[in-house]
């Protein structure tokens, strides 16, 4: 019991100290004015990230390695991806390749 309690406490500390969504099982990235926000999202393994496109222009979430890809996301459309492996995932918008961001899975 004690060990479990410490583990939970440890996790809570991580959640409190990490930027953005670290420690939660769901996280979001907003696409607005041709920008991904946050540009660097830190999450823990198993987290599902949902991107929402607030622009009227179509955007994509396209991994630079081909690990994941959304296809065209219209206005108010979303795309979700679960990250089960640690690593740094770079992605961009295939229609506007200057739009770049990363997901860091810890």
């Amino acid at each position, binding site marked *: 019991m004690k060990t479990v309690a410490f583990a939970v406490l440890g996790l809570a500390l991580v959640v409190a100290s990490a930027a953005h969504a670290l420690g939660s099982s769901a996280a979001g990235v907003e696409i607005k*004015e*041709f*920008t991904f926000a946050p540009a660097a999202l830190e999450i823990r393994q198993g987290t599902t990230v949902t991107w929402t496109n607030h*622009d*009227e*222009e*179509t955007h*994509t979430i396209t991994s630079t390695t081909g690990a994941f890809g959304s*296809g*065209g996301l*219209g*206005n108010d459309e979303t795309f979700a991806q679960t990250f089960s492996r640690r690593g740094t995932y770079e992605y961009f918008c*295939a*229609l*506007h*390749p*200057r*739009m770049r961001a990363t997901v860091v899975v810890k």
Partner: protein
Amino acid sequence: MDRVDRRGFLECMAWAGSALVWTSAGGVLSSRTVQQVEAADSPAAGFSFVQISDTHIGFKGQANGDAAATLRELIDRVNALRPAPAFVIHTGDQTHGQKPGAFDTVAELLKGVRTERVVYVPGEHDVFLDGGKEYLARYGKGTVGERGWQSFDYRGTHFVGLVNVLKYKGEGIGALGQDQIEWLEKDLAPLTSSTPVVVFAHIPLWAVYPQWGWVTEDGERALASLKRFGSVTVLNGHIHQVMTKVEGNVRFHTAMSTAFPQPAPGAAPAPGPMKIPEADARRMIGVAEVTFVPGGQPLAIVDSVLG
């Protein structure tokens, strides 16, 4: 023969239609509004064609709830032209994000244009999902290596359609690529320098606003091979607004979209559809009609809008 004087030009600006007519005669491009062409005699030894761009079928936003409807309206205007345009050039972004069925809608609507043929080059919206597979299956036939670029001659004018969206990666700018530039140089080589040349491609070949990706990274190389010609006209789309520039014998012109306007360079935090009422947007969307007229007058560019 060229009926566009300054007054006429200004009148055109208020014309409630979105087509610009280009006419060629004697090798010099000129342009008039649809109205003026309707009123004019047949352009002796000249011809006209229409540039349609950025139809973005599938787009729905504040500025336009039905991009097919505005295109349809525009086609009706083009069909009222006398004489009819010899052909239509679509400078890309037929679809908005390759929405399913959008290519069919464009093809169906453009079948309704009274003209000999429609020539296409792709925009990034037409190819980004599948690397151009669907686009080239539809429009690659008869192009160089079925890769989408092409040239043809029409009554003494040489037309070149380039593809600068299929290497659309990296820093977010358009690119032609080595193969296409080499082909262009060979394509132009046999022509005399007095041959009028019209080059069209989706993304501007000149640096309109690199910060927004409104530039073709190797466009300068293509333009270098055009320098020796006495009359070069470069027609582009992509930026959904009219911009013109003259550099030596080269006249650059970008067309409006038939769907929605984009902000002027730097006038907003980002490019993209302007969020304005439809009534206002109608004054910022349109097409271009190009008319060649004899007499050696300088190219006049007139853009008229839908509403």
